[in-house]
C-alpha cells in the first residue's frame, strides 16, 4: 500500500523531530569525542582519534564493558522471566485484581533517588532491616557493599525489582490480544497448561517480547542513576560500567573528550548488538 499525502507529511514531521532532537544532539556527542576539551561551552581543538586511542588502552574500559554487559544481560533476563510470570499471575481473574496490578507497578513509580536511599538503609551493615533478617535467619552478616561480587548482585537485583513492572505491564497488554479461541482450540486438542503456554501464549507474545527486549536491553546497558546513587561504581570498580566511566571522566575529572569517546564507543557496541538482535528476530517478517 502506498501513502497518501497526509500520512507522508506526518511521517516527514516525525522525521524532522527525530532529526532535530535526537540525531543532532547525538552527532554533537560524537563530535566531542574527537575533541580535546574540558568544556561544553568553548569551541575545542580537534584531536582526531587521540581520545579513542587513550580510552581503548585503559584497562578500566574493558573491565567496565564486561561489567556492563553482565549487568544488562542478567537484569534483562530476570526482568523478562519475572515480568512474564507476574503478568500471568495478574491476568488470572481474582478479586482485588485492580489492587494487585496497582501495587505491582509501584516500584516503577517511586523516584530512583528514593529507591536508592530506601535500599541503602534496609541494607545498612548494622541496623538495616534486611541485614537484621538475614542475621536472625542465621545466615551470617550481609555487608553488600564490601564484596565486589555481592555489590554487583545487589544493584542487579534492585534494578530488576525497579524495572520488572515495565515488562509485566507490556506482557499483560500483549496477553489481552491473544484470542481466547486459540486457547479453546488448544484445550480441545488436549493441551495441558504448559503446552498451552508454549504453543499459544508464547507465540502470541512474540512481537511484544521482541520490543521489550530491545528497549530494556538498551536501557539497562545505559542505566546510570541507580548504580551511581547506590555505589558510584564501587567497591574497587566492581559495579562500574561504561556510563559511569563516561560520566566520571566528563563530569568529575574535567575530561569531556575522553568521556564522550567512552560514550561513543559504548554507543557503537550497543548499536551492533541491537542490529544483530533485530536481524535475528525481525519485527517485520520478510
Amino acid at each position, binding site marked *: 500500500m502506498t501513502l497518501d499525502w497526509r500520512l507522508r507529511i506526518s511521517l516527514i514531521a516525525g522525521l524532522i523531530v527525530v532529526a532535530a*532532537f535526537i540525531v543532532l544532539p547525538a552527532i554533537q556527542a560524537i563530535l566531542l569525542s574527537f575533541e580535546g576539551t574540558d568544556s561544553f561551552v568553548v569551541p575545542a581543538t580537534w584531536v582526531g582519534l587521540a581520545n579513542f586511542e587513550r580510552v581503548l588502552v585503559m584497562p578500566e574500559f574493558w573491565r567496565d564493558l564486561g561489567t556492563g554487559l553482565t549487568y544488562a544481560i542478567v537484569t534483562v533476563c530476570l526482568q523478562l522471566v519475572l515480568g512474564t510470570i507476574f503478568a500471568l499471575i495478574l491476568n488470572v481473574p481474582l478479586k482485588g485484581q485492580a489492587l494487585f496490578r496497582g501495587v505491582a507497578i509501584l516500584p516503577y513509580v517511586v523516584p530512583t533517588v528514593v529507591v536508592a536511599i530506601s535500599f541503602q538503609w534496609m541494607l545498612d551493615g548494622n541496623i538495616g532491616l534486611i541485614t537484621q533478617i538475614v542475621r536472625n535467619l542465621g545466615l551470617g552478616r550481609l555487608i553488600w557493599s564490601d564484596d565486589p561480587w555481592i555489590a554487583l548482585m545487589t544493584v542487579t537485583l534492585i534494578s530488576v525489582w525497579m524495572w520488572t513492572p515495565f515488562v509485566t505491564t507490556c506482557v499483560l497488554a500483549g496477553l489481552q490480544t491473544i484470542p481466547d479461541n486459540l486457547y479453546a482450540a488448544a484445550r480441545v486438542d488436549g493441551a495441558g497448561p504448559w503446552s498451552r503456554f508454549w504453543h499459544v501464549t508464547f507465540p502470541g507474545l512474540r512481537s511484544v517480547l521482541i520490543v521489550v527486549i530491545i528497549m530494556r536491553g*538498551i536501557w539497562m546497558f545505559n542505566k546510570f542513576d541507580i548504580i551511581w546513587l547506590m555505589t558510584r561504581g564501587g567497591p574497587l570498580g566492581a559495579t562500574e560500567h561504561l556510563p559511569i566511566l563516561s560520566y566520571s571522566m566528563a563530569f568529575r575529572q574535567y575530561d569531556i573528550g575522553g568521556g564522550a569517546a567512552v560514550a561513543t564507543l559504548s554507543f557503537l557496541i*550497543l548499536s551492533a548488538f541491537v542490529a544483530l538482535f533485530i536481524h535475528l528476530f525481525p519485527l517485520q517478517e520478510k
Partner: protein
Amino acid sequence: MTADPFKKALLRVLQYAMAIGLMVYSGFPIYYMMVSSVRPPQEFLKTNALIPTKISWDFYRTLTSRTDFVQQFMNSFIVAFGTVAITIVVSIVIAYIVARYKVRGKTIIVGLMLYAYMFPPLFLAIPLVSIFAQLGLTDTLVSVIVAHVTISLPLGVWFLWGFFKAMPFELEEAAMVDGCTRAAAFLRVVLPLSLPGIITVGTFSFLLSWSDYTFAVVLLSSDSVKTIPLGLASLLGTYDFRWGEVMAGATLVALPLFLLFTLFSRYFIAGMAAGALKG
C-alpha cells in the same frame, strides 16, 4: 479438566497466594518508605518497626510549608500529561504507517529513534539546551515535554509497531469491504483493539517523564518550573540529612499514582478481555 472441587479450590488458593506474594515483593520496600515517613524525627534512625507506634507528620509539614513541593507536583503532572498526549498521538500515526504501509527505509527511520537511548542522557541534554534556546524555549515546561517525547516516542513507536503487527490485517480489510474508509476502519477496528497497547505506552511515557532527572536538571532552572525529581534531589542535598522529608515526599508522589494506576487497570486492561478479537 479441573472438575475436582478440591483441586479447583487448591488452585484458587495457590493463585491468591501468588498474587499476594507478588504484592509483598513489589510493595514492601514502598511500605517501608511510607512507614519511615511518619516516624518522629528523633526516632527516625533508631527503629526498624514496621508498624508505627507513634505517628508524626513533622516531615510532611516541613515538606509542604518550607519547600515548593506542591508547585513541583503540579509541574510534574503538566509535563507528564503533555508527554503522554503527544507521545500517544504521534506514535500511533508513525507506528501504523510503519506497520501497514510500504515506505522505503522505514526500518532505518524507526531505528534512528533508538539513538535517543543509546547515549548517556547528559551528552544529549546539553546540546539540546542550545536548540531550545534558539527556539526561545529556555527554562520552560514545554522544552522538557519535547525532550521527554524524544525518549518516550521511540518506545511508543516500537511498542505499537509490534502491537499493530500482531493484529490480523484481515480485520481491517473486512471492515473496509463493509464500506468503511481506511480511516474509519482504523478508528473503529484497530484503535479499540490496540487500546491495551496504547494504555501501556501512555503509562510508560507518563512514568518516563515523571521520573526523569537528567533532562529536567539541564533544561529547567527557576524554582517555579521545577519538577518533583529536581525538588527531591535538592531537598536531599548532598551534605544535609533530610531522609525523612525525602521519604515523605516519595510517599506523596507514589500515593496518587498508585490510585491512578489501580483505576486505570480496572478500566482498560481488564475491560479488554471481552474485545472483538474473541470472535
